């Protein structure tokens, strides 16, 4: 405990010295987020300085081992760092699917060579990754994916199409689920890593109802993927044909993330904020806000309990599915209420007063919460089967 307090003091001093004042404000829009990668540019000097300080300290991925580019912090230390960063509203120095998704997979399934090579690249923000999972015909039924990698000895030739590849048009490399055995549904998928500049890879942004387009369609036309990138650096994570295990592992991570269980910040009633911004509330809107706040404050407790239990291995392995279901449904409801409280002003789509219709666009964006990373229907099915142990499909 004394050590932790010393660490806290040290961290506070380091942040004081290294986090520029401009980086101590909430993110306003996409341009405030630094994603790294080959084509990355910094918005301003402060963003650059903050990123580089963190990178050099291992604080882009504080809990990863030092040899992979992290700071090797213990869970308790990492928590202190998070708290101290939250205290001064410090922005994340680097956002990346490499950190959130590929990293955990490599830490769990990767070879030593892969970890050294790829994790350091991720930690240093050198390579921006995207995820190639869904296909037009394979949404909830992900395992039915058709993108095929033909075995050509020392390489595969990959053909097919992915959809919902976030920022594929901005990414350098992809981690991609590719069928390598057509005879075997679950054990015929390989989790491959390859460069998006490989000939035959093309991307096309998807315009969403919110007016934004963070997602792409990605096409593979005779893409040549080498089987190895050097000694002990195979091109696939886990074994060939066992990529489904990796994907399932990562879906668990993704569900935790999307559930907002780690948010922590959402622990105060929204009704009060709505009243401040909307003036007097209609009595029935007030009632709906109150009912929502009961659910939201209770869910915040559940999030805390879930994280506490995960830490000590007490959570049911399928609990993230429950959290994802409940958290995303709640978030959709929250934004319905924001819209109701905002009235006709909230309907504005591109006026300056509404920062370009921010509230409406965010409302529409939340509708994807219960679809991406496993639909609510899939989550409920998993809970029914794995937790309640109900029979049948």
């Amino acid at each position: 405990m004394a050590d932790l307090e010393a660490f806290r003091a040290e961290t506070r001093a380091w942040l004081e010295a290294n986090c520029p004042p401009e980086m101590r404000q909430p993110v306003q829009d996409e341009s405030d987020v630094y994603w790294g990668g080959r084509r990355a540019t910094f918005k301003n000097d402060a963003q650059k300085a903050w990123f580089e300080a963190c990178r050099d300290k291992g604080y882009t991925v504080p809990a990863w081992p030092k040899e992979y580019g992290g700071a090797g912090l213990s869970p308790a230390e990492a928590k202190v760092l998070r708290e101290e960063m939250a205290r001064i509203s410090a922005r994340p120095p680097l956002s990346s699917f490499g950190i959130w998704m590929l990293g955990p997979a490599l830490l769990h399934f990767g070879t030593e060579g892969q970890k050294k090579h790829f994790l350091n690249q991720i930690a240093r923000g050198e390579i921006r990754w995207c995820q190639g999972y869904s296909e037009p015909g394979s949404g909830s039924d992900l395992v039915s994916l058709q993108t095929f990698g033909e075995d050509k000895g020392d390489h595969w030739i990959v053909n097919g199409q992915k959809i919902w590849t976030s920022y594929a048009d901005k990414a350098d490399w992809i981690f991609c689920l590719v069928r390598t055995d057509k005879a075997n549904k679950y054990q015929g998928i390989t989790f491959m890593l390859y460069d998006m500049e490989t000939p035959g890879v093309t991307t096309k942004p998807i315009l969403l109802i919110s007016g934004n387009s963070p997602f792409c369609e990605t096409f593979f036309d005779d893409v040549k993927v080498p089987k190895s990138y050097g000694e002990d650096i195979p091109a696939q994570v886990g074994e060939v044909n066992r990529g489904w295990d990796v994907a399932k592992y990562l879906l668990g991570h993704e569900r935790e993330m999307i559930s907002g269980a780690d948010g922590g910040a959402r622990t105060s009633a929204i009704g009060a904020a709505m009243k401040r911004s909307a003036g007097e509330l209609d009595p029935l809107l007030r009632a709906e806000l109150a009912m929502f706040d009961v659910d939201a404050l209770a869910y915040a407790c559940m999030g805390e309990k879930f994280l506490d239990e995960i830490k000590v291995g007490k959570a049911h392995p399928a609990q993230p599915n429950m959290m994802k279901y409940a958290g995303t449904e709640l978030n959709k409801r929250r934004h319905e209420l924001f819209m109701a409280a905002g009235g006709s002003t909230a309907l504005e789509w591109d006026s300056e007063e509404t920062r370009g219709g921010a509230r409406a666009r965010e409302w529409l964006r939340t509708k994807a919460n219960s679809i991406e990373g496993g639909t609510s229907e899939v989550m409920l099915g998993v809970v029914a089967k794995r937790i309640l142990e109900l029979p049948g499909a």
Partner: protein
Amino acid sequence: MPLYHTEDQAMLAETAAQFMGEEGAIGKQLRHWRDRGCKDGFGHDLWKQMAEMGFTGLLVPEADGGLGMGHVEAGIVLEEIGRNLTPSPFLTSSVMAASALAHASAEGKGRWLPGLIAGDSVFAVAIDEGAKHRPERIATRAEKSGNGFRLTGKKDFVVHGASADMIVVAARTAGADDDEDGVTLFAVPKDAAGLGHNSVRLVDSSMASHVTLDGVELDGDAVIGEVDGGRTVLNKVLDAGRVGAAAEGIGVARGSMDMTVDYLKQRKQFGKLIGEFQALQHRAAHLYSEVEIARAATIKAQQLLDAGSEQASLMASVAKAKVGKAAGLAVKEGVQMHGGIGMTDEYDIGLYMKRDRALAEFMGDVYYHADRVARLSGY
């Protein structure tokens, strides 16, 4: 009167369905004007065509050159407008402004109705002040000035305001902001000095104005109905607008539901049509039930309005609130059941969600109207 359409009404429904399905289709109207960033948010050609169909003057008495039909018939047209998300000034002009102009002087009728009936003019209604619908409170002032009045105030959510040739404005000629009495309706022409617009595009690609009335001078003959006694006419305009918005909302709900049920019969996952999954079947059946019930309430409200019943205003709120719930459910289930593609701009289902949101807010949302049902019922 039985709660289904007469043969004449069924024929009108068929005509309206065919017309909106062809001329008012999403690709032809909503997307067309939206993608061009049209400043009106709708096409004047279609409005003219709607006049040729006889829709524009549907509620105008025959003596005044219209068809002398009722809210049931207007609702039939609105349901097809809703189903096709057809952008048009029908609701604000042919339903709401027409309901106001029924109380105008002969001179006022002569000035405005021919343009409405011909589809040459567009009308808007300015009631709301602030982001939420609270027509019990009217703060915009109209002070006596010479022969006429001088209007000062701000109005919000004036749909088609900047495109309108005339705006029906509710202002206060006497009393305090929250008084029932002392309200007067005015016909404010587009070229009135001191009339200003901040026109904004809404989530559904329709255009609405924040209207400023900066000492707008009007003649006495701009008054619609009685000076200080405008609340009666205003309530009729509100009821007409609410029931009309409910009818359009039913069209949105049914359009969304039909599109979704079709999708359930086409999309395969896990080796089955997703419509075979019992959980989705039950949700779709529940949705059907809600939409049918909301539609029954809407038709009942139309009939009561046409009959001049005392119960009409209560049922208008029941219908608006119930449609708010049912259509909200229809678009939410629609997007969710479409999965990822429901989130893309390329598919139409998201457009239903956007239109529903704007319609739900227009003339009072489910919270306002459920509260009003309680107040009118004495609790």
